[in-house]
Each structure stands twice: as C-alpha cells, then as structure tokens.
C-alpha cells in the first residue's frame, strides 16, 4: 500500500546552511510517527517543507500518489496536510468557534455572488460549518469556551484549539509541531488522549515533540534527526536503544 505521506531525499539549504540533508521518511495511513532530535536539528524546517511554507531545494514530498512539494500552503492544506505551530498561531481576536470555522474554509465553497444573494445553499453550508465546528470543540473539550476569544483562553486550551482548527480542514495527515511544549503533566495527559482519539478517526499523525514520555507512549514509529540528517528510525524501543541516538542526545563521549 502506498504510504499516506512520503518524503524522498528531501534537502533544504539556506545559502550555505543545509538545514535538512537528504531525509527519507514514510508515514503509513493511520500511524503516529514522531520526529525527535535536539534543538536546531531541522525538524521544523522539515515540517515547513512538507506543509509548503518552504519549497525544498531538492527532493520531493508526496501525499499518496500526488507530489506536493513546491505547491503553496493553502493548496497543500486543501489536499490534506494541515499543521499546528510550535509557537501558537491562533486568530487571537476571534472567538474559539470562529477559529475552528476558519478551518472549514477549504472544505466549503460559498462564493461572492451566492453570499450576496444569501441563497439557501449558503445558509445550509453556514449552518453545517457551525455544527461541525461545535463537534470539534467538543472533541477538544472546549465546548464551554466556544464564545471566548482565543487569546483569552488558558495555554493548554489554546494548544487544543489549534488542533481543533486544523481538524476542521479534514486533514489526511495532521502535523503537530511540539503540541505539548510548556504543558503541565495533566495537560499533557489530556493532549495524549486527544491525539489517540484523532488517530482513531483514521488521521495519520506526524508529530514533532520533545516530551519523551509522550512520544514513546503513543508513537508507532519514531525518526530521529540531528544536524539536518536522519540518524535513526524505528519503533520507540529500537530508537531508545540506538547508540547514535544516545550520542546525539548525551554527547559523543557518553
């Protein structure tokens, strides 16, 4: 079976710096694959290449059979790869439910004329958007906060809202960039449950995370990057025992 997402020979160079160096990685449908590595290893750069924020210098990214590298982010989102951000990027002045409703944009179609004439199909669509958004807020445990402004939500809730917003776009692959950063153990546990639930809906999850307990507990596979190169890949157990991984995290002399 074709992998949901495959990254082939991906290289990203910024002038003299090679941030990502010939990385190969495949994510099978419905898996949770984590990407770990020390700070500056090139994880987020790899994410940016996958989601279209950077056009890779070499190599390609395919979603199913379709090559997506080099296409703009909004097209890639529509095709089925949606992300969250390391530093939360919600629409702060919009309410929680509106944030999620924006996520529905690429799955809805009401155009200018239909909107101006307020046709029945537009009304129906708008109602459907709202209902869908409400369901997702429920899933993320944010239903009581629906009308609060995003920027006034507690930190953990903001993280979950970002995930709900991403889910609204019906991704095949959901890319989460350090979703547990700065969370307390309780919030992390909630997040873990949420991620498992999302996988249960058949979404493939690509996760960057530093929180090792979380990574090792929920990942099907783990890839490790250091200095832009993928140095190991395997099940959580395999990776934890890999001498190269230990060296990358603890230093060479260890």
């Amino acid at each position, binding site marked *: 079976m074709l992998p949901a997402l495959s990254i082939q020979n991906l290289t990203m160079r910024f002038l003299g710096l090679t941030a990502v160096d010939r990385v190969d990685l495949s994510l099978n449908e419905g898996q949770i694959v984590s990407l770990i590595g020390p700070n500056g290893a090139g994880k987020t750069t790899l994410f940016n290449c996958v989601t279209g924020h950077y056009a890779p210098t070499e190599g390609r990214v395919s979603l199913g059979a379709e090559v997506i590298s080099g296409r703009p982010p*909004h097209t890639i989102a529509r095709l089925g790869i949606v992300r969250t951000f390391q530093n939360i990027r919600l629409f702060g002045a919009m309410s929680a439910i509106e944030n999620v409703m924006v996520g*529905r944009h690429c799955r809805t179609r*009401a155009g200018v004329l239909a909107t101006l004439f307020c046709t029945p199909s537009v009304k129906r669509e708008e109602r459907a958007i709202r209902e869908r958004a409400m369901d997702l807020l429920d899933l993320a445990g944010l239903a009581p906060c*629906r009308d609060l402004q995003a920027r006034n939500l507690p930190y953990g809730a903001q993280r979950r809202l970002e995930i709900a917003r991403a889910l609204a776009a019906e991704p095949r692959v959901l890319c989460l960039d350090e979703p547990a950063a700065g969370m307390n153990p309780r919030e992390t546990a909630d997040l873990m449950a949420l991620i498992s639930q999302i996988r249960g809906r058949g979404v493939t999850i690509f996760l960057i995370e530093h929180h090792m307990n979380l990574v090792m507990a929920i990942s099907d596979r783990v890839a490790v990057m250091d200095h832009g190169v993928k140095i190991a890949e395997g099940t959580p157990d395999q990776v934890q025992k890999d001498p190269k991984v230990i060296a990358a995290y603890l230093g060479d002399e260890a």
Partner: protein
Amino acid sequence: MESRAMRAILRGPAARMAGWTAAFGLMALPLGGLTGASWTALSVLLIQLATLAIRTLSPGGSGQIRRLLAGGGGLSSRMDRLPVWLSRSLPPVLLVALSLAGLAMGPYALDVATNAGIYVLLALGLNVVVGMAGLLVLGYIAFSAVGAYTYAILNTQFHVSFWVALPLGGALAALVGLLLGLPTLRLRGDYLAIVTLGFGEITRITLNNWNSLTHGPNGILGIAPPSVFGFTFSQPRHYFYLVLALVALAALCSTRLERSRLGRAWVAMREDETAAESMGVPTLRLKLLAFTLAAFWGGVAGVVFASKQLFISPESFNFLESVMVLCMVVLGGMGSVPGVILGAVLLAFLPEMLRGVAEYRLIVFGAAMVLLMQYRPQGLWPSSRRFEEFRKDLGTEAEIPSRDFGKER
C-alpha cells in the same frame, strides 16, 4: 502585519508629535493653502502638548480618561450590546425614516445629504479592503475616477444611459482594481499603501493630460442626468433617493460578506496571514477579491457622482479625497458597517456645519481627528472584534470578557 503597521500609525504616541504635526499640516495644504496648513499644524501641536501634559501630570488620570472613552462604560460598547431585535430592526427603520425625511427636507439639505450618501458609498467600499481584509489602500478615489469618467465619456460620446453605465463603471473600476492588485498585493503593509498612493496620483495625472479623451483639466461637460422611462432626474430629491437606495444595497452587501466564510477568512488573514494560509485560506485570491469589490463600489460611487454633478474634472479626484474616505473608515471604526456609515456621514456633514467658522474648520477637523486617534483608536462605533483588538493594545486585556460574543455571528 498590515493591521499592526496601521495601528502603529494610528495610535500615534506622543513621541511622534512632530510627525503628526507635519502630516496634518501637509494634509491641510491643498485645502487651506499655507495659512490653513500652518494653523492646522499649530492646533495639532497644541493638542498633543495638552495630551502630554495630562499624561505626565496625572499618571492615573490619563488612564481614567482612556477607560471612559475606550472601555466598559463608553457609549459604543453599549451600542455594541444592542439587543438582537433592535439591531435587526434598526436598518429598516432607519431606511424608512430617511425616506420620509427626504420628503420633508429642502433642496440644500437634500444636496448635502446626497453628497454625504456618496461618501458613505465610498467609505463602505473602502471598508471592504481596509476594514475587513486589513490592507491599507491610499489612492482609493482613483477607482471612483474610473467610474465617473466611464460614464462621462460613454454618455457624452455614445449616449450610453446611466443605468447601463452604473454597473459598467463599477465593473471597469473592478477590472482596474484586479489588474492593479495582481502584481501589488504580494506586497505587505506599508509598501502596498505606497503603491496604491502612486496609483491614485498616476490616475489623476493621466486624466489631467489625456486631452483627446478626457479634455484634461477642463473636464467633461454636459453629462446627462439619469432618466427612467422618460422621467429625468432633475431635483436634489431624485438623487437623494437614488443614493439612499445604493447605500442600502452596499450596506446589505457589506453585512452579508462580513458574516460569511469570506468575511471570516478576511479577518483570519488580517490576524495572522501565515496561519490563515496554512488552514487552506488562499490569501492572495482573497486579497484580490477584497480589492476588486472595493474598486467596484468606488466605481459605482463615481458614476453616481458624475451623474449628479453633470461635470467632472480631475480635480475632484485628488489625494485629499482618498484621505477623507480613509478617515471616514477609521473614524467610524474599521470593519464595522454601522461605524463606517456614521464616520462618513459625520465627516461629510462636518464641513457644512463648520461653514460659519470656515476659516478655522480645518483646525477643528484636525483637532477632532487627533483627539480621536489618541483616545479612541478603534473608532466611534467599532465592530466588536476590532474593539477587542484595540482593547488589548490599550493594556486592559486582563479583564475577562463578559460579553455574549455568540450573538452576532
């Protein structure tokens, strides 16, 4: 990005007093000549000094004033919280009231009201791009010039009727907007403002020099007034109702857009362009759409303007007009339909009301603008969201919002 740049411009901290003074002086230059400009500059400077004095002398006092004007107990937040039945019924009631008032008003009042109505049309159009999409456009009046000249030329040379020219002028302006937007909308923030400013000037200068088509600075004379089945518009009252109908239509369109998925996407784009793009919002296309729609209404307003004046010249489309329309949008509250209408009406009536003190009216105008920017940067009747955006800037974000956000959308 855009809104941050804009906010930085609008908030105008006291440190930038000199900038404000020069800006208002320059703005007044074409209107009032050197004397007017220096008076305006002086008044602006005085007000800023007074503001600074209040701030330094009473550390708590300034905060109180701000809260009073900008926050909780202010007039606007009460208007924001209009009960649903009232906010639903207000527009039709207003429309009927204005229609009836049209019967009672004299020709002078009707003429002033019609001019105000044309400004409302312009402001509602500009609001789509500045208020909703958050792009700063400075040469907006040029689109109006395109509409006005479309009608003037088609009518005087080919006897095209007003009713054909009305959508055509709008469409042509929209096309110009689209063509201008294609290359320029990749620019962010201030750069876009500069390019559109240049476009406005280029349009005016072209109209001024293309003698064979536009008769240059002499303008175009003898434009026919609109007529329906042999009935020709001849009195101010006829134009009043025409403009009233168009304003109602524009307001309805704006409101519907604002509450649609497109309106939401515009706000999202304004808040965080990168995040919006990642959520599948095609930001470039949406910016183009906003630009084109704004240009369309500019063109429509231009056609109406030409049909009312029966004479147009490049002079009517100078930079000051663009600034006026932008001021209307900002004064009323960017992104808020009722606010923008209020702002446009106020600024259009202001010169008439200040006729008695004509020599000083620029001073009053400048003073009012500066006071407003200092104390109420979100506008007189802001949309609830803009209200929150600016409230954050005023440093009162610690308050937990108690408002029912869900009722509007």
